[in-house]
């Protein structure tokens, strides 16, 4: 498997690895995937009062592409509103990282992860998911 330079960069120097307190009011947590499938992604967003994502963290069990997809996503969502974050598409991630066809599912998982994190945040705030 040959990875693109961007995947290798994110894999070797992952951005925003870590965790926030899951019970924090301002934190939304999305956990997607399953160990049996070979990838589990945990994405967390910390949202300010104005609905802007101030910070993001991830932990990923998965291949290099899965790690790179989630690392890239944490960079992208920072500074975006939760609404804007919801518009990120897996195809954008796949394109940015030049993922090969067999690895497209990693970008799909990343898109699912941000959606799940936003849903969790909204649920905490009684907003429609």
């Amino acid at each position, binding site marked *: *498997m040959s*990875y693109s330079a961007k995947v290798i960069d994110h*894999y070797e120097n*992952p951005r925003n*690895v870590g*965790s926030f307190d899951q019970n924090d009011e301002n934190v939304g947590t999305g*956990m*997607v*995937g*399953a*160990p*049996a*499938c*070979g*990838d*589990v*992604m*945990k994405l967390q967003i910390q949202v300010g009062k104005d609905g802007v994502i101030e910070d993001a963290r991830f*932990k*990923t*069990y*998965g*291949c*290099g592409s*899965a*790690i790179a997809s989630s690392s890239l996503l944490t960079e992208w969502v920072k500074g975006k509103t939760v609404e804007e974050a919801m518009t990120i598409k897996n195809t954008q991630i796949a394109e940015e990282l030049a993922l090969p066809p*067999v690895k497209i*599912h990693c970008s799909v*998982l990343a898109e*699912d992860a941000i959606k*799940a994190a936003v849903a969790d945040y909204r649920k905490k705030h009684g907003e429609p998911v």
Partner: protein
Amino acid sequence: MQLPIYLDYSATTPVDPRVAEKMIPYLSAHFGNPASRSHGFGWEAEAAVEKARAQVADLIGADPKEIVWTSGATESNNLAIKGAAHFYGRDKGKHLITVKTEHKAVLDPMRELERQGYQVTWLDVRENGLIDLEAFREALTPDTALVSIMLVNNEIGVIQPIAEIGALCREKGVIFHVDAAQATGKVAIDLKTLPVDLMSFSAHKTYGPKGIGALYVRRKPRVRLEAQMHGGGHERGFRSGTLAPHQIVGMGEAFALAGAEMATENERIARLRDRLYAGLSGIEATYVNGDLEARVAHNLNVSFAYVEGESLIMAIKDLAVSSGSACTSASLEPSYVLRALGRSDELAHSSIRFSLGRFTSEEDIDYALSLLRQKVAKLRDMSPLWEMAQAGIDLDKVQWAAH
């Protein structure tokens, strides 16, 4: 030290320079076709082929007349399984027995025979990778024509009890084939005493060249086969096609070296493997796959829980190792061998096969260990599963989102 460090001797081995040296003259100076019976070029090629046949026979306690050259163990397995099933299936019956952890070169011909109307019993293995002899005994039926069970597993290195299996086959008059591609030079094989009818060999797993293998076909009692490749009637009709003397000479020399050096080499490699094992045991939540006793010294197959196999391979790219067998590594499926041991998908996904060999040094092992310690720690820091496990969450009880 040359990076990446090669720890994938079960996938293939370098040709030992002493072997290469013997091969090269048969490319240009002694280039004859051994089937040419009318001149010295042919005769010298034929003499070299026969010398190598004796060398191969010598390592395994066989008669040279019992050795049939093939292009490799895959072809040997195909010839043995299809050839014997077609021949004996006519009157002995159409039932065949094999094991779920066999190499694909055994499983695929068996599936092909299944499509042709044979019944195949696919035996399970126990958690340690070895078959249950009682279950095997029960699987034998009056219709059983052929059993195929490997000597040494390519992924986990375990040694199946083929003497016992063979004795049961003899009792029932069943033909017994053994894939020994991974065994030569690692375990002693004596076909004078082993009740085995057909045995497959490969040169390139034992420091010989790729593209050459052999099938042992017992003469007493005589074992029959239907040829799978037809033509000029080479190899007493078992396998047509021009022989490649340089490759055959290489296999002969490689097997002669294996016989001469097996004892000292295995001792040295076992020490290196123990060093690797001791080091890996120091990393939390690592599991060895397959029995540690009934196992060749060269192999250690380890699962690193909570890290994913492909990212681990990427992290340790200074080590040339494989996850699962080389032949299946293009697919993202977890290893079927580890699944058959009852390993969970995630442990199967995170397995690494370390296979050591003639040119592995202590320095190589130490480098590998320090790299693994560092990278496994880094990946676990990044792993949500590790975080959950540290928090005391039972991962088996988690409802994972379908994906």
